[in-house]
């Protein structure tokens, strides 16, 4: 295959990934929609006997068929069927996310091969967006089993779908060689670390939002059905958010405060120069540092810390979108205009 073939394959793969993300999202929406009518139990998921059943520890829980039968003698059979349907939609959603992630990865790899000469697929804003969205999906899939994250599926697939659509519609530039400033192996190290950290912070922000929603619902004592009722307990959400952030923070430290400065020293002759991108990377770092401190401070735990995490995420997004598109400075690699 010639570079041009790879490049057009990449475009097709990214488009296909968007479609499959959309289907995955619909499947998760259906999962929650059908789950609405089910009472919430703290018990094992339906069909727990199935060896690949999603662990119950922190994930959504469905009443077992037996529990359902206890509640409504005549509707018991129906309840079991509906539980099964919810479970099937959930698994289909995860399976489709895996497929979409694979297509997404294929799109990224061929994008790199589609440039002449071949290079890493993150040299302009379109590619940063595609790579960043993949980072989010990858982090989600990597942690899915460990933390039972299926309740995040609808948000992760929705996020990746929206980012890919925006990238294709607004940011697309044809595959081409790198500008000289980016021709360095630090591009691999610096950007990979930034993408991983961004993926972790994005998943962490989703968990923090859901924590806020769930904690609010619990405070108000709202009805025990629907999506919110099926989320893990606030403490579990808070813990997952913390763990993902605690993973992302050192990676961000490495990307923004070690790899970035080393490269800047080679490229621009100074390791730190308060370029707008550097300023905002620093702001993001400071805000997430505040998040970690807040979790250990009376009066800031919980809601306060979650809000700080969201502020951190906002600064991260502003740095990516705002500074790349509207800012000046040395990090102007959007490839647009």
């Amino acid at each position: 295959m010639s570079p041009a073939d790879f490049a057009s394959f990449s475009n097709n793969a990214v488009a296909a990934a968007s479609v499959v993300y959309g289907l995955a999202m619909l499947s998760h929406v259906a999962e929650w929609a059908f789950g609405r009518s089910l009472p919430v139990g703290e018990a094992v998921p339906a069909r727990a006997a199935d060896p690949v059943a999603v662990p119950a520890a922190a994930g959504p829980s469905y009443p077992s068929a037996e529990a359902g039968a206890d509640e409504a003698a005549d509707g018991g059979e129906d309840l079991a069927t509906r539980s099964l349907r919810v479970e099937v939609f959930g698994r289909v959603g995860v399976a489709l996310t895996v497929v979409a992630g694979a297509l997404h990865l294929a799109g990224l790899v061929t994008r790199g091969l589609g440039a002449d000469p071949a290079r890493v697929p993150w040299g302009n804003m379109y590619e940063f967006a595609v790579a960043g969205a993949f980072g989010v999906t990858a982090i989600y899939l990597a942690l899915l089993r460990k933390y039972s994250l299926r309740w995040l599926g609808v948000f992760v697939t929705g996020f990746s779908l929206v980012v890919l659509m925006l990238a294709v519609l607004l940011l697309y530039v044809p595959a081409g060689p790198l500008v000289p400033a980016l021709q360095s192996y630090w591009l691999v190290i610096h950007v990979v670390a930034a993408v991983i950290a961004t993926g972790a912070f994005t998943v962490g922000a989703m968990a923090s939002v859901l924590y806020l929603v769930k904690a609010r619902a619990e405070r108000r004592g709202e009805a025990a059905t629907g999506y919110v009722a099926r989320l893990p307990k606030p403490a579990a959400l808070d813990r997952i958010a913390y763990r993902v952030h605690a993973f992302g923070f050192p990676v961000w430290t490495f990307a923004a405060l070690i790899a970035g400065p080393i490269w800047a020293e080679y490229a621009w002759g100074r390791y730190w120069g308060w370029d707008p991108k550097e300023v905002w990377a620093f702001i993001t770092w400071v805000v997430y540092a505040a998040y970690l401190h807040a979790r250990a401070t009376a009066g800031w735990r919980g809601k306060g810390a979650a809000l700080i995490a969201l502020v951190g995420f906002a600064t991260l997004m502003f740095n990516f979108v705002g500074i790349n598109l509207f800012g000046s400075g040395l990090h102007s690699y959007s490839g647009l205009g």
Partner: protein
Amino acid sequence: MSTATEPDRTSPPATPPALGPRELSRWAWRQLTSMRTALILLFLLALAAVPGSIIPQENVDSIAVSQWQDSHPGLTPVYEALGLFSVYESAWFSAIYILLLISLVGCVLPRTKVYWSAMRARPPKAPKNLARLPEARTIELAEDADVVLSRAREVLRRRHYRVVSTGSTGEPGSTGAGEVAAERGYLREAGNLVFHVSLLVVLVGFAAGNLMGYTGGVIVVKGQGFSNSLSQYDDFTPGSLFGPDDLQPFSFTIDDFEVDFLTSGEQAGMPTDFSAEVTYTETPGEEPQSRALAVNHPIKLDGGSVFLVGHGYAPLVTVRDGEGSVAYSGPAVFLPQDASFSSFGVIKVPDALPEQLGFEGLFLPTYGFTMEAGPFSRFPDALDPVMSLLPYKGDLGLDSGEPQSVYSLDKDELEVVEKDDGAPARIDIALGQTKELPDGSGSITFDGVERWVKLQISDKPAKGLALGGVVLALVGLLGSLFIRPRRAWVRVRSVDGRTVVELAGLDRSSGGDLGEEIDEIETLIRNESQKEPT
């Protein structure tokens, strides 16, 4: 200023106790070093960094600063008073991070003391009622109590716990009852302290680099040379502790400079490669050496590194004056205005007679023209170079003694050369052409095109200190986030010929899987017990 959930930093009292200066200063110190204050200072630091990314900064882009100041004459004095053109050196920005550092030190010092004694302390004795701990198990085994106890000790030791046992010694003949107290994860707090202290190291390295280093910029036309002395620089920013005499006497010549642009496809015009060939002499008298200089590939010399940061065009022109003699011949540096290298510049001809001449206008590497846009450059490479200049005559103002930019004309004593009909005599001149000025005050010849490179020459000492500091900070951070400080206790006693084992654990940080840990310890104590023949 620390991430662990230690109780050392309790919240400060809401109101100051009414009292003397000693109590007051103590109260103030506690306020300053409280975690809540640290949080607020962190937020202030983030917030204070924002304006510097929006308002042009003197140290980042001084040209942008003067442009901004020209277009905002009303705001400029206010912003200047607030230090908004050099936020990161301003008093208020410094105040925030200095307070933060004091707060950090105020937190780290006492914690180091606490840590020092905690590190040497024995794991605390088992609480009376182990069942009340967050994770507790009770199991019964068939083996002798002292066998189980020594195994428990071994299991915990292998899991990197510090172990202390009381009661049974495990020796034959002992009663068997006893307990093991174990603790692990001491390095978490060490990581936490290292992280915070390393931040100080980074700051010291950063400050030292800024104080003792320098940064300078210079444009060098291909074929020309540079020697490292103050007068050669276009702009030069020394640190407070750096004197011009500290400049090392290296020199170099730009022998060649090549740029490749994409010539086809939608991204045509994008540069794909640029590099210069440089001959340099590190110390006078040394044998000159040759090397390529490119983006991401600086030349490191003793006392400074040379970085390629930009490039542009310098058209070669010859100007003859009204008397027909050559008054100027050579390159004139034009500064690129856009990605297609439409470049703006001036040519000053002070030697022209009877009147001095000046030209101002554009250099277009590949000429294009539309009625709407006027002359423009279609491509960044010099494929069809044209200059579009407006000639001036009169006094260039070079003798007034005031320093003048080489990139602009002082038009106070100059007048535009006009055509016979009184319109300005704009000159569009292609490569190789000669154009006469209509009023007979001279002529200009476009002889050729040369390229120039913009070089940054800088030296920042203590780079290693800053890098070492930040790497150490990362190591400390990893320790403080992922090492789990835990305590575990095992109490063994014999009841009716069976051995009852109570096992309990306590997490000293949040976010751990204490349950799993205790389960594993339980399995190890049990499994090994079952493996052995009884």
